[in-house]
């Protein structure tokens, strides 16, 4: 009997001490994220996980996006003036903004115009001592041709800075509000340069953001402390820990057992379990991405418009939506997700309801879908078009067969479909999508061979341009149609490997460029509609689904912001 008591004692002791330090737990947030950041400087990366870990925790930007309107609003810049020709932007800067005080850097002055010039000249000026540091590649800024766009960034006085552009660009303010346009410390840069260790600028970060880096264990965790002199109000969390847990099943287990307060990217198959849990909320950032099927328009038989159209008609997107996304996404009727058009629709509904230029625009979108963090129980954020009936599907298949017959391919053909090996924000399972396409195209006699490739290998084969077809997509970095259309379909994007259909249409480019220099919002939208119409007419890409970004978190947490165009923001997060 006594033996049993002894055996029970440690068990009782351990079970009895289940409670964590309450004060500490109240002031801390544990966020489970799938991977380590590839850098602590968002200028150098495009991965969402890196943005999650760095963009809004360590840094501030001159501007930020309003969570509801998605329009730029003041941040480190208190206000700005634009010259009439749209070529000069002058920003007045917030005074008394403190940089992080860390073991590796003690700032001697607050943020000023020098820091803005330092942060932005690095990106374009090849003579800048930091331009080639950490690889010298700035993916977002090269995609928007920053070096060609910005002629100069110069100091007006300590609290004013001016950007001089080579040509007007309607998205310029959005670029400055994007997650990538972070402000670094010029003083820290100079100190590291003098010490001969400039690469530390991107590894041991110093910013003005709400948190400062305390400890980083690669592949294990990142520990942030509250920035004690943060310039914005809010006594949020004192500690923020990013727990790096690659497997989504493990993240879910930690979420359920209370070891994570919030969890990034739950798998589509897990959403139901999460929704059934009484303590866990599920939020979805509106789908600012698109998954597409890209057919190589420069290679026979896909250079024939009829073949592309036949394939488009034979697809059953609803099956993909159900089997791959478990119904938690929106069917893509067009390349652009609904969020891009919302503000224009809300401001001028009558101009859009007829939708005669682009039948894809859905005027019934709820504005709630664009709010940054809105727990959803239904899962669906917008009205889904009804799936096809059997007879409609038969009709489409017959039409597709006729088109193939006209193209001289009534017996069908063989093709290879490439896809990314891992999950993407816009497509959680490329292989499964490919298998569905295999079945759906079989009635036309088209035999698909599937090849799942790693990111780098896939990018290389797209650059070589020998592919038949690819399952790919794009997640928008800023709320501008240009970001999706230009990256997926512009002639220049063929060379960058992001235009997988290798479609190049000068008329389309003209519309995009007109839109970018047009200051009037409504007219811009008209140009984008025209551009999109050209792409749809020619079946340049076949849009499949707009996915949604999910975040699971405990109901006791308030103020988390999952941003539709980038990472997550913990600045205002707190525990009740």
């Amino acid at each position, binding site marked *: 009997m006594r*033996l049993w008591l002894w*055996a029970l004692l440690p068990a009782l*002791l*351990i*079970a009895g*001490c*289940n*409670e*964590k*330090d309450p004060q*500490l*737990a109240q002031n*801390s947030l*544990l966020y489970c994220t799938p991977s380590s950041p590839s850098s602590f400087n968002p200028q150098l990366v495009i991965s969402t996980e890196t943005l999650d870990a760095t963009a809004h925790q360590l840094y501030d930007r001159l501007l930020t996006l309003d969570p509801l309107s998605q329009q730029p609003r003041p941040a480190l810049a208190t206000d700005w003036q634009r010259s009439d020709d749209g070529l000069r932007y002058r920003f007045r800067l917030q005074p008394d903004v403190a940089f992080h005080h860390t073991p590796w850097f003690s700032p001697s002055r607050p943020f000023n115009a020098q820091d803005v010039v330092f942060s932005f000249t690095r990106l374009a000026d090849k003579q800048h001592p930091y331009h080639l540091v950490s690889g010298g590649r700035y993916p977002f800024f090269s995609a928007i041709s920053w070096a060609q766009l910005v002629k100069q960034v110069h100091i007006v006085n300590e609290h004013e800075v001016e950007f001089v552009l080579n040509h007007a660009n309607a998205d310029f303010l959005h670029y400055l509000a994007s997650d990538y346009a972070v402000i670094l410390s010029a003083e820290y840069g100079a100190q590291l340069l003098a010490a001969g260790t400039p690469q530390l600028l991107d590894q041991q970060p110093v910013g003005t953001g709400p948190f400062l880096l*305390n*400890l980083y264990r*690669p*592949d*294990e*965790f990142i*520990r942030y402390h509250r920035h004690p002199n943060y310039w914005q109000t809010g006594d949020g969390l004192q*500690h923020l*820990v990013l*727990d790096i*847990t690659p497997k989504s099943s*493990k993240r879910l*287990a*930690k979420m*359920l*057992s*209370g*070891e994570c307060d919030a969890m990034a990217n739950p798998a589509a198959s897990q959403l139901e379990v999460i929704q059934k849990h009484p303590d866990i909320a599920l939020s979805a950032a509106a789908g600012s991405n698109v998954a597409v099927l890209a057919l190589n328009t420069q290679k026979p038989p896909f250079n024939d418009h009829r073949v592309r159209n036949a394939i488009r008609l034979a697809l059953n997107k609803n099956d993909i939506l159900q089997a791959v996304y478990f119904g938690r996404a929106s069917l893509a009727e067009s390349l652009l997700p609904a969020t891009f058009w919302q503000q224009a629709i809300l401001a001028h509904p009558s101009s859009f309801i007829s939708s005669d230029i682009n039948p894809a625009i859905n005027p019934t979108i709820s504005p709630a879908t664009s709010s940054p963090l809105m727990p959803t129980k239904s899962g669906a954020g917008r009205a889904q078009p009804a799936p096809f009936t059997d007879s409609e599907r038969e009709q489409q298949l017959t039409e597709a067969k006729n088109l193939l017959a006209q193209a001289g391919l009534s017996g069908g053909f063989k093709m290879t479909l490439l896809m990314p090996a891992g999950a993407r924000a816009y497509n959680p399972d490329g292989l499964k999508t490919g298998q569905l396409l295999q079945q759906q195209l079989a009635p036309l006699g088209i035999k698909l061979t599937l090849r799942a490739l790693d990111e780098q290998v896939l990018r290389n084969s797209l650059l070589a341009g020998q592919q038949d077809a690819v399952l790919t997509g794009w997640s928008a970095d800023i709320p501008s149609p240009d970001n999706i259309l230009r990256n997926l379909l512009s002639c220049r994007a063929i060379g960058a490997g992001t235009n997988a259909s290798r479609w190049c249409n000068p008329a389309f480019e003209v519309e995009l460029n007109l839109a970018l220099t047009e200051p009037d919002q409504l007219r811009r939208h008209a140009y984008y509609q025209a551009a999109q119409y050209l792409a749809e007419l020619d079946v340049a890409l076949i849009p499949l689904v707009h996915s949604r970004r999910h975040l699971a978190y405990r109901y006791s947490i308030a103020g988390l912001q999952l941003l539709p165009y980038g990472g997550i923001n913990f600045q205002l997060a707190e525990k009740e």
Partner: protein
Amino acid sequence: MLLYLLRRLGLLISTLLMLTLIAFSLEFQLLSQPTQSFIEGYSLFLQQLLTGDFGVSSVSGLPVLGTLGQYFPATLELCLAAFIISLLVGVPAGTWAALHLNRWQDTSILTGTLIGYSVPVFWLGLLLVMFFSLNLGWLPVSGQLSLLYEIEQVTGIMTIDTLLADTPYRWPAFFDALRHLVLPALVLAIVPTTEVIRQIRSALLEVLKQNYIRAALTKGVSENHVILRHGLRNAFPMAIPTLGLQFGTVLTSAIMTEIVFDWPGLGRWLITSIALQDYAAIKAGTLAIATFTIVASAAVEVLSTLIYPARRRAIYASQR
């Protein structure tokens, strides 16, 4: 005795040399430099090892030895906890089985050991996580300590470091570390426990046949007293060397356990390094695990010989 220790030490060193030779020949085959002969290369390799130069990780860019030092204590903590559990459970169970020879108690314990021995470690780990962490919510799913606590690494053994830490939440952190240790240590303890049970059972059965036990029992000394004072005391020396060999098995299972429970130890580090093709880390990790196994089993043997001189005599006798 000195002769014995010298002999044992010689054997240990030659085994370790063999190990480095195998490690180097693999490296020589894969990444040989044509300007260097095998002998030159090997002596350089040995020099580097002796000076603690294990190379630089191609992933983190840091010296591998430092990383090794960071992860090794966590593995040690896990293995020691598992070993303690296996003794705490195995010795009473083995004794119980021996005392109820061929009765249902004995049969069920033996069946239990067979099941415990055959059950895959990762599967058992997942099962325990499902039950204790997800269903009951008693124990954490993974890791060594809740990331809430900021504990400075002194020894790397978290149950000790939490107590050494100068923070107001020292005790909650200590119990949190204990709670994190329970499931992985239990899983890791399964195989050695079965071995302890079997060894203690057979050793005790051997001892209980001896005349002095019968004599003590006929004298009217209580059965418990006889078993504790005479039976186990004499059974242990027979069992210990075999148990020492369990270190190897425990370390192999530790790799899998660390993966299942995200335990930040040597095994998980090794597997991650293999995935990232970080050759310096793989080499250092493998050498560390192998060296630890060899040194530990040798140490157990020497220890048991020091404690039970009778064993020493047996060794000499068998060597004649």
